[in-house]
């Protein structure tokens, strides 16, 4: 399953929204069809439709969903837009996931899981080793942050934390998962996240989808 699609699904699950997933057939080049380009002019996934509202870019879709369901109870205030400082911290750590964490971690996922499964190519160990070096430096910063706060943006869960779920979930299925053991506060934070009902549910779906790819 696309990690960017999973990013949106986590938010949909967290707010308890009613939704359906409509598969886009990449093999049949459906993502470049006129119908799909009307939803996402870059011909990518995800795209999202809610009545007349059509959106693309996973983080933009996710924020729309969170804001729409703002009064849905305890899970709701994932963006903290009512508070200048707290909203800033959510933004900071959402950007950090995109620009620091993901670029260091995702190559390991691609090399160890995705490329072997989808293209039949062997793991490029040099890329993996370089990425793990970068990831260690990033996790040093996360360890310091999570030693002071229960979650990245403060003491309750936010959009910033949720964004880490999809790629980290896959990372934990690579041979390098034990890297997190050297960062006890990061590990504890991860374990708190995956205990959430939304992530248990989504994790099961993602694991099933991954098993499906391996067998294909």
């Amino acid at each position, binding site marked *: 399953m696309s990690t960017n699609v999973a990013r949106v699904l986590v938010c949909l699950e967290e707010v308890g929204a009613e939704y359906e997933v409509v598969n886009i057939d990449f093999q049949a080049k459906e993502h470049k069809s006129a119908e799909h380009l009307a939803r996402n*002019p*870059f011909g990518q996934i995800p795209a999202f439709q809610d009545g007349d*509202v059509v*959106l*693309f*870019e*996973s*983080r*933009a879709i996710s*924020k*729309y969903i969170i*804001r*729409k369901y703002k009064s849905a109870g305890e899970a709701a205030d994932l963006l903290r*837009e009512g508070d*200048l*400082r707290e*909203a*800033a911290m959510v*933004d*900071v750590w*959402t*950007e*950090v996931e*995109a*620009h*620091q964490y993901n670029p260091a971690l995702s190559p390991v996922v691609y090399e160890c899981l995705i490329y072997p499964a989808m293209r039949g190519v062997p793991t490029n160990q040099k890329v993996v080793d370089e990425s793990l070096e970068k990831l260690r430096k*990033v996790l040093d*910063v996360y360890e*310091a*942050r999570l030693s002071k706060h229960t979650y990245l943006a403060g003491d309750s869960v936010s959009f910033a934390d949720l964004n880490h779920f999809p790629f980290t979930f896959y990372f934990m299925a690579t041979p390098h998962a034990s890297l997190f053991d050297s960062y006890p506060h990061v590990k504890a934070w991860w374990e708190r996240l995956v205990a959430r009902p939304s992530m248990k549910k989504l994790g099961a779906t993602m694991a099933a989808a991954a098993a499906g790819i391996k067998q294909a």
Partner: protein
Amino acid sequence: MAPMKLYGAVLSWNVTRCATALEEAGSDYEIVPINFATAEHKSPEHLVRNPFGQVPALQDGDLYVFESRAICKYAARKNKPELLREGNLEESAMVDVWMEVEANQYTSVLNPILFQVLISPMLGGTTDQKVVDENLEKLKKVLEVYEARLTKSKYLAGDFLSLADLNHVSVTLCLLATPYASVLDAYPHVKAWWSSLMERPSVQKVAAMMKPSA
């Protein structure tokens, strides 16, 4: 109330992305240079502002904000929230969409071009023309999407100026400083959008900051 401090050099288009937002929002701020040559970005003082040892970083009293787009949003929320439209579900979604597009589609292909043409020579390296050419081709495909969008609305998120438009300014000003500025000529609505942004005092001020004095 002390002015906010934006740490970094105006050479960095990530720093001037923030300056654009701060200027347009009418924020009270000053730019404090960080000396990379003396590794000031890795000093304990700076690591408090940005634990990744990078620029920009913003200080507002006892609050530190880092990552340029988070800083831009902070400035908008604090001093000119209409740039984000957060009270309006559909408008704020369009602002978010085009802020993501700036980061993930536009600047992601401009960054390697700007690095090869403007930065690498400055660091004593050469320009890898293959990287420039590949990314220029990608940029043209991105500009086709922008052209279609700006045929339908005056600004990216709709008929109102938003932070989505402003976040494009610093890298586009840098593009104009390369030999490849004419890539925009094939996209008349993009050019018109850009011209209207260039008329804004905030954008002119940032453009002046980025030019070394003659």
